[in-house]
């Protein structure tokens, strides 16, 4: 936790230093004011002779009071501002780390979980970096200064005053431990609750379509109530924790009466000093009270830091290390050697001993039943998941040795399930590119032209989150255009024709064929035999194994899955 604080807060040390100076000034003023008041009160006792002194002291106190406003404001601003910067930086770093981590790592966390780490946990760290640090410094300075003043007034009395505080701190320590556990539990429960809310909103059409609102609300209530129980338990601890230290402070006034009272009576202390003592005790009441709150912030932040560090501290899964090889800039040869891959949590491998070579610039078609392993192959090719070493080669180089960034720029996968951001169609396709000529080209290749013409805002139509405001086919082709606009040497299209009508399919295939001639190594996954007819070679996958391979013509010419599928798709003609 210390090294974490040093790392995140260190760069802002001058803010904190300035803030501490302001705090010192504030506290200095605050403890000096009672002394001047005491002098004033004692001067009163001298009768008329003391009057000028009283006026003088009153004037000093008033000026100091006004100065307190300035320095205290300054101290808070100087502490809170870097707190916000720390929050901002940490959130950026965490977001960046999430982007750098590969899906194989990120599957461990639900989106809701990551979200709550980015929002609540980072927020808790800010509380520590801003408010918490301020209070810590403030309390430290206040105690030191008030302590010094008290020691000057009367050392024995001052020492006695420590006892109630020490006892209270001990009790606080015990309560805090309990609180810490409850806090962690609360954070987890809140994250789960967020997850449920998020997935419900995402699947809202199904929830409403199946009249499942009540069931989802019931599940929500279950988690909501569980969270309530945890927070109530936490409150019980906190209710005792909060006033514990101000109790100590009040008890100190009592101790004063017992100890200083007799001293005033026997003349070893003045009434003015007694008054000054009570003022000093009142002065530390505030910092004492916030100390217990502060302590709970520290504990909470500790839990949050752990959750943030779990993601931040692990390096991304990049077996190539810092100096991976650059990807070939031309269309490469792709070779699979005895590739076997099993998804975590599954018994059977999704791919078994798959061997196939796609010559540079040629195309491979993949046909296979549901769950046969086609998309798995695509995930391994793009290294969304790393294949086992020694199974996948690009121009003879193990794909694991390629620099991931350069490989990702060289390869384009248009995934089976299109994901669109809630922006305009153009922004979704361009992904930050500026080239509007390319946009024209890509929409034409993806056969989006007629759709854009029909939409009132054309390419500037906002598609809604995940593209909800587009038809399925429009969504799919927008995702396709996004893939086609890139300069790649390898293109993988995973079932991108499933939601388009026949005429559009024909147009698309025509466009893709033209693309293929530009020299891009292509992998085409499709359920339509017609889509695979123009590929250079086809493999047929079943339960992860290659059960047939050859050119489309060869496969059509002999009995097997490919021919059966073709016949099935042709069956319409017979009727």
């Amino acid at each position: 936790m210390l090294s974490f604080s040093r790392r995140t807060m260190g760069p802002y040390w001058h803010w904190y230093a300035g803030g501490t100076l302001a705090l010192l000034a504030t506290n200095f003023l605050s403890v000096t004011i009672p002394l001047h008041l005491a002098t004033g009160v004692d001067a009163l006792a001298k009768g008329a002779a003391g009057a000028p002194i009283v006026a003088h002291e009153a004037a000093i106190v008033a000026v100091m009071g006004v100065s307190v406003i300035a320095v205290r404001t300054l101290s808070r601003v100087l502490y809170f501002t870097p707190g916000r910067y720390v929050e901002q930086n940490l959130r950026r770093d965490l977001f960046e780390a999430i982007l750098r981590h590969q899906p194989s790592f990120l599957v461990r966390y639900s989106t809701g979980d990551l979200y709550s780490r980015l929002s609540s946990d980072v927020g808790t760290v800010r509380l520590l970096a801003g408010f918490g640090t301020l209070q810590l410094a403030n309390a430290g300075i206040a105690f030191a200064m008030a302590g010094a003043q008290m020691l000057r007034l009367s050392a024995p009395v001052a020492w006695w005053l420590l006892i109630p505080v020490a006892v209270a701190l001990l009790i606080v320590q015990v309560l805090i431990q309990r609180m810490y556990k409850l806090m962690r539990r609360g954070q987890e429960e809140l994250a789960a609750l967020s997850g449920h809310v998020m997935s419900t909103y995402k699947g809202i059409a199904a929830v409403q379509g199946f009249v499942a609102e009540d069931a989802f609300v019931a599940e929500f209530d279950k988690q909501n109530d569980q969270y309530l129980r945890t927070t109530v338990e936490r409150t019980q601890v906190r209710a005792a924790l909060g006033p514990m230290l101000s109790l100590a402070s009040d008890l100190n006034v009592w101790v004063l009466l017992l100890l200083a009272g007799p001293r005033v009576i026997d003349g070893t202390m003045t009434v003015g000093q007694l008054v000054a003592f009570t003022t000093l005790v009142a002065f530390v009441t505030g910092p004492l009270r916030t100390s217990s709150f502060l302590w709970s912030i520290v504990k909470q932040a500790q839990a949050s830091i752990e959750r943030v560090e779990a993601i931040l501290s692990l390096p991304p899964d990049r077996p190539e290390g810092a100096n991976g090889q650059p990807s070939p800039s031309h269309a490469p040869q792709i070779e699979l050697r005895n590739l076997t891959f099993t998804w975590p949590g599954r018994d059977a491998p999704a791919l078994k001993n798959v061997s196939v070579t796609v010559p540079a610039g040629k195309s491979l078609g993949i046909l296979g039943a549901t769950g046969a392993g086609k998309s798995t192959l695509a995930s391994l090719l793009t290294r969304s998941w790393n294949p086992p070493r020694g199974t996948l080669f690009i121009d003879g180089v193990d794909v694991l040795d390629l620099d991931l960034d350069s490989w990702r720029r060289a390869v384009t996968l248009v995934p089976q399930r299109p994901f669109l951001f809630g922006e305009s169609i153009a922004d979704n396709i361009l992904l930050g590119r500026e080239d509007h000529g390319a946009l024209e080209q890509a929409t034409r290749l993806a056969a989006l032209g007629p759709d854009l013409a029909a939409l009132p805002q054309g390419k500037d139509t906002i598609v809604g989150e995940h593209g909800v405001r587009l038809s399925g086919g429009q969504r799919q082709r927008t995702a396709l255009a996004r893939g086609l606009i890139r300069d790649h040497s390898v293109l993988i299209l995973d079932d991108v024709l499933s939601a388009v009508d026949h005429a559009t399919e024909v147009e698309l295939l025509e466009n893709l064929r033209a693309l293929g001639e530009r020299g891009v190594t292509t992998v085409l996954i499709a359920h339509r035999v017609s889509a695979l007819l123009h590929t250079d070679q086809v493999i047929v996958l079943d339960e992860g194994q290659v059960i047939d391979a050859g050119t489309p013509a060869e496969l059509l010419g002999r009995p097997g899955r490919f021919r059966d599928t073709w016949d099935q798709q042709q069956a319409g003609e017979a009727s």
Partner: protein
Amino acid sequence: MSPTPVDADTRSLRATWAGLWPYLRQDLWLYGLALLLAPATAASTMIQPWILQRAIDHAIVPKDLTALGVEATTFLAVVIGGFVFQVGHTLLLSLAAMRTITRLRHAIFQHTITRSQAWFDHQPTGRLLTRATNDVETLGETLTAGAITIVLDALQVVGVLGAMFWFDAKLTLTLLLVAPPLGLFLEFVRRRLRGLFDAVRNALAEMNSYMSERLAGVEIVQLYADEARTLGQFEARNKAHAEANIRTNVYDALLYATVDGVTSVTLALMLWYGSGGILSGVLTAGMLAAFMDYVGKLFRPVQEFSSKVAVIQRAVASLEKILGLLEVQDAVVGGDVTLAHPTGHVKLEHVSFAYGDGPTILHDVSLEIRPGEVVALCGRTGSGKTTIGKLLTRMYDGHDGTILLDGAPIETLATGAVRRMVGSVQQDVQLFPGTVRSNLTLGHEIGDDKLMAAVRMVRAEDVVARLGGLDGRVDEGGKNLSGGEAQLLSFARTMAHDPAVVVLDEATASVDSLTEARIQEATSAILSTKTTLVIAHRLSTIVGATRIVLLDQGRVLETGSHHALMAQNGSYAALFREQFHELATD
């Protein structure tokens, strides 16, 4: 800075807090009890200086040790009593606030998930999530730590002031000279903060919705090497959020510090004034000491209060957002007719439809499907096929013309009844984190036998076995399933719910043809007992339909059986021949 009209501001503020009323009403007794303890806590705080004064004036100055003993013991009793009351007060208050908040969170969830699809089409889920989590949490913190204890603070101020007046009215009045400027200042800052915190809430929602969307699409960001730009866009929002917060800092700090300084100024005022009093013998040293203590006790709640002003402004900003959400009326309102045994007769008469104020998507569509019939919809993508399905399940309303279900206009039926009658396999597969079973039942009571029957019907028994049976895990959005597997589960779900009318919207588009054929075979028997609307691109899968409807840019171009349409030799026939002719010659 332009001044805000006073009553517009306060009225809306009052209305805002009034909006919270329904959620805290049930816990009124808890709040009441907490408030009852408040005067006791305040009293203990107020009595302490008084005892101190007595101890100084009546015991210490007269050098009376026994009297000092008595005063000290009283003091201890008061302190401990005060502690007990305060713990009780905090406990009750937090309990009440948390229950309120839990209820509010429930209300937000319940309210939002019953809003219309049209509304959801324009809502980033991240923003909704911010309302249900961050905003509610902020409000909760305020309720426990701030809003209600203000009553306590106010009580304390009134009590301390009363005690001071009782001691010395003139002195107190002099001290009160500081009140008007202080009050004006606090009000000024409060107003500024209100606007600033509103900006903070907006910046936060903006950042969160970006965050949640990119987290959901993180794979695309990575695949398309778009990390740098995404990070840049995120950082812009992150920075805006930080800066919006930093802008509030100065006011926030000023609020706190001002009261602190004013306390000292008041003490100075008192010292100066007190000198006159003591000289003329109306004031004793003990009274002055007590007075100084009182001034401290007077300003502590004022300071607490002013530091809470910021917290409360933040909460008001959150509460406004939440109430705004709860006021959204956009829901599909159904009638109250429920059908006990729907037969599944579907009829569309001259239906036209547009999404919101967008272009007209469906033009004068008429269509009838009788029980036992299978009607197929075909047409280019974007021609409005899915839209017809959405209207039948009443996901959207506001169409022209009539949609009749079992002869009743769809608006007169309860939405629940409509959706139980018309089940659709949506083109967009939506799965939830949980198990295969929970995804199939979606919380309804459906036995495993029935679930497995539905699974077999869509030929997904192998798939379910592969996932580990009905208890197999399904991740968020079905991420751990293949595209076809997810679609099959979605299909099985609809079959398990056994609706009278089934809409199959490209229900097997991601499934291989051989499996598709087997599904068709397996479902044909059960579908012949239902009313079916099939939407498909692959004409081979619809040739057996009772009627085929060809849709073109939202208009019905041709209707008839496959043979009738082929004989008619129109667009359908052309389309059909094109599809199979090309395949044959390739």
